[in-house]
Each structure stands twice: as C-alpha cells, then as structure tokens.
C-alpha cells in the first residue's frame, strides 16, 4: 500500500481547474444555470403579487435566494470542497430541473391560479404547514416510525426464523408449508376488520398486520435461499468437522443472505401499504391518520406536506436497508451486478 501513496501525492499536485471563460460554459455552466433558476424562483415570490393571501411567500422567496447563493458558492469552490463539491457538481442538472419545477408550480398556482386553487396549493402554503403545524406533524412521524419499526422487526425476525426452519428441517416444513400457502398470499389488509376487534388495542392490531405483511415475503425468500444452498458446501463443512448448528449458522444462513435481503425489501414495501391503511382506519396517530384528518378538514396543503414527508421516510428506510445489505454482502461485489 505504501508504494501507492507516494505516487498518489505527486498526482495530487496536478493543477486545479482555474475559472476561465471556457469553463463557464462547461463544468461551471450547469451550476450557474441552477443558481439562476433558484434566483428566479426567489424573485418571482418576492416581487410578483400573489392572487391569494399566503403568509409565507416572503420567507419562501428569501429561502430560494439563499439556496441560489449556496449553489453559486458551491459551484465555484467545488474543487476545494472535496466529496461535497463533487456531489453538487454531479447533481447540478437536477437542481436546474427542480428549480424550474418549483418556479413553474409557484407561477401556476400563486401567481396565475391556472390550477384550481384549494386542491393545488402553492409551495408557500406547504412551507406554512411545516412551520405552523410542525408539532402535530412530528408527532405523526414519530408514531408512524414507532409502529412501522415494531411491526417490521417482529415480522422480519419471525419470518427469518421460520424461513430457516422450514428450509432446514423437512419435519417443520411439513407442518408450516400448507399454512404458509393458505395464509401467505392473502393481502394483510384483508385481516383489518378481524384484527381490529380481536386485538386489545388498535396499535397491537396494526403491529400484527405489519408483521404479517413483512413476514410472508421474508419467510418465503429465506426458505428458498436456505433450500437452494449447494450441498457441496455442506459436504465440505462436514468433512472439516462441522456440527449441525455450524451448518445452519455458518453455512446455510450466510449462503441464503442475498435471498433474505430480497425478502426484507419486498416485506418493507408491503408493510408501508399496511401501515398507511391501518393508520387511516384504526390507529388515531401517524402520517396515514394525518392524511385522513387533513382531508376531513379540506386542508390540502397539509396532505401534500404529509405526502412529501412520507415519501422521504419510505425512501430513507429503503436506503437504510440497502446500505445494510451492501455492508453485510460486500463479498458479492464482483460476483453479481446490483
């Protein structure tokens, strides 16, 4: 390794890109355009009268101009900002597109009301929800996370253990396969009415449903993962003196792990659906309930605000799962293409 670092330091001495006129149209051009679009968005908020009465128009305008300034600063100092600068440069086209989209949205709603107004609120009214209704929104977020996390962990654990058991033992498989085949394909939401009066609380009922929605794909994929482990691996381990517990824990499970992660991913997707439905119908908390409540009051801006938060949470959860997989299955890099 030390031999490489020597050549690395000499390479690092190469001249940095200087700001020249030709660069303005090249690597800096997209960043400049992004900055310009956000500036236009900010100015349109500040100096163009709204058709309605929104309290956060000015804050939004100032915020957009601050973003424009950050993009401008980042664009010209990207070379000195390390990975953050590189990330900004890579995403500059997206910043242009997103800036153009919010400008268009602002103009189409707050400035000209091309879109029918109560149903399509302008960006500033969504900002207003985040500032003025924050406590309630945060409570909902926490409630959703708590419910989702509990149900998902229970479902994933039970599904994993069941999957390994039926993949490993034919006796257990004999009893569990028919049950799995009969109950598994049933959408978890079909249990809703029964779950809500058989369980002591709507919270425990929802946890059960989320666990169910998670458990089925995790079970099936863990099972198929364990069942498809090549018998050659077991032969090798047995001749080296492995006991059955070693075969399960150190051969079957690691070999099945790529399948398990597919199951965990599918389980996550279906459990989100159950979470939202359960919150809308039974649980009096969480983002699903917030959506329902906002609809009841015709508070359309709150609905959009909650939807945005929800999508951030869901994609965050999936990103987290992928990061965990990348860490655990680092040996797969180079074997399969993700």
């Amino acid at each position, binding site marked *: 390794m030390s031999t490489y670092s020597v050549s690395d330091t000499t390479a690092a001495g190469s001249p940095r890109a200087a700001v020249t006129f030709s660069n303005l149209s090249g690597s800096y051009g997209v960043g400049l355009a992004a900055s310009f679009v956000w500036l236009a968005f900010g100015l349109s908020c500040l100096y163009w009268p709204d058709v309605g009465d929104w309290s956060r128009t000015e804050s939004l305008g100032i915020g957009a101009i601050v973003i424009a300034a950050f993009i401008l600063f980042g664009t010209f100092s990207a070379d000195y900002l390390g990975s953050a600068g590189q990330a900004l440069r890579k995403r500059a086209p997206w910043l242009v597109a997103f800036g153009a989209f919010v400008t268009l949205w602002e103009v189409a709603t707050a400035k000209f009301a091309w879109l029918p107004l109560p149903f399509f609120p302008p960006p500033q009214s969504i900002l207003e929800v985040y500032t003025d209704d924050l406590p309630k929104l945060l409570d909902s977020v926490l409630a959703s996370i708590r419910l989702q996390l509990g149900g998902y962990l229970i479902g994933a654990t039970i599904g994993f253990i069941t999957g390994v058991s039926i993949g490993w033992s034919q006796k257990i498989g004999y009893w569990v396969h028919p049950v799995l085949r009969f109950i598994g394909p049933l959408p978890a939401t079909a249990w809703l009415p029964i779950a809500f009066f058989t369980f002591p609380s709507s919270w425990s009922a929802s946890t059960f449903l989320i666990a169910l929605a998670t458990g089925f794909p995790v079970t099936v994929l863990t099972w198929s993962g364990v069942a498809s482990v090549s018998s050659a691996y077991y032969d*090798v381990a047995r001749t*080296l003196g492995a006991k059955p517990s070693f075969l399960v824990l150190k051969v079957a499970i690691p070999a099945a*792990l790529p399948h398990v992660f597919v199951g965990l991913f599918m389980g996550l997707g279906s459990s989100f659906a159950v979470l939202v439905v359960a919150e809308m119908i039974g649980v009096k908390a969480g983002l699903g309930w917030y959506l329902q409540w906002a609809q009841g009051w015709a508070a359309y801006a709150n609905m959009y605000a909650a939807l945005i938060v929800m999508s951030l949470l869901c994609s965050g959860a999936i990103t987290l799962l992928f990061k965990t997989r990348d860490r655990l299955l680092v040996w797969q890099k180079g074997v399969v293409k993700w």
Partner: protein
Amino acid sequence: MVVQSTAEAITYPAVGAELDIEGVSHAFDIDGATLPVLDNVNLSIAPGEFVALLGPSGCGKSTLLRLVAGLEKPRSGSLREDDVRINGPHPSRVVVFQDPTLFPWRSVWDNVALGLEAQGILKTQRHRVDAVIELVGLSAFRNAYPHQLSGGMAQRVALARALVNDPKILVLDEPLGKLDSLTRIAMQAELVALWQRKGFTTLLVTHDVEEALVLANRVIVLSDRPARIKADIAVQRPYPRHRGDPYLADLRKQILGLLGLEATW
C-alpha cells in the same frame, strides 16, 4: 486426537493413517431401480502411502471417496481408519473436491480457518491458519475473496483448508481436473512436495493416467460400473519423477490397455 503438536511436526513423522476397505459394495436408488456402483472392493492402504484410483468416467471412484470421507455409508462391507470403523465425517480425513467450493462470503483466511472454527479450536490455533496459507504461497491474498482468485489459486486455498486440520488421510477428488495444463503440472509438483513433507496418507481419484503415474506409489485401476479392482500396480520410482521416463511410459501403456484404450497408444 487429530491435532499434532508442533514438536512432532518439525521432525516430519509419518502421520498418515492406515486405511482398510473390506468387501465394500454400494448402490444408488434412482427412480425405483437399484444402480450398483461398487462391487466388493477390497483395498488396504499403508500409512503414508500415495494411492491413485483410476477408472473410466462414472465408474464409482468418487462414490468410493465419499465413503472414505464418511459422507455416505456403504450398503455392505466396512471401512476402517487405523482399525477404527468409519461412521461419519471426521477432520482426520479431509476431502479436496474437483471444484474448490470455497465459501464465497468468506475471505481466503476465513475459508482456510473453517475446519478449526467448526471444531471450536480456532481461538488458540490461529497461527496454524497463517502457517498453512504461507505454505501454499498465498499470504498476499489472505484477505481476498474467492471471486478474486484464479482457478489455481482457489484450488490452493482448498488444499490449505484441508491441510490446516493436519489430516491423517488426504482424500483428493480430481482436485486438478479443471485447471489449465501448466498450472496443473506446477500443482502436481507442489502436491508431491506437501505429501513428502507432511507424511499423510493420500488417496487421489483421477482420470489422468500420467498424473497418477507422476504422483502415486500405487495405482489402482477400477473397472466399469459397478467398480471392481482390476489391477493394483506399484510405481517404484523416486520423486521427482520425469514425465518422459520409459518405465512410466511402459506402465502407462499397460494401464491404458486395462482401461480398454490400447488402440489409442
């Protein structure tokens, strides 16, 4: 037990075990029909001997190895290691298969450590893993994953994974069968050197007559399925052997004749 003390290892003793195969017959049930694969095989292998099993493809050589390894039990007859009946797998009889079957989720070091880990003695015996990786010349690759290795390197890891257990009997199931011819010749020499140094009894299945003659003290020629012993040929030549040796060429001709391939000579 299996574990050799280091003092013994330095004096290079004959650590090999005696292997006795007595009246072993075996068969498989395929779609209700019984397919006999081994027919009354009798073979006695002295400690430290290097025996090659030669036979036509699909004759039951590998089945015999699985019985020696204890992965399967024979329908009749018995197998004994140092007069102890073989009832199941044991790390004193380690198999190297045709495919290296390295665990892709484990690094080279962790693959080699597998046997010691399975026996629960890895914590005190880590130096043995390092030593055997050094022995097969892969110290630079100890942290590599199997998919980063060439075929020859992977097979060397598989060999190291077997040797770390200090086996008394090393069972080789065409371990060089899938390697290119240059790697193969190099690894044959390495195998002989390891065997001479360690002194384990070696049982090698191969379909390459030349390989059997270059490596083994004794070549057992098996018949078509169900396998019976057709010939038991002693190869009395010192190591390292030369492929062009007229004595070996003569034996080769004789063995090819036994396999029904005299016309190709």
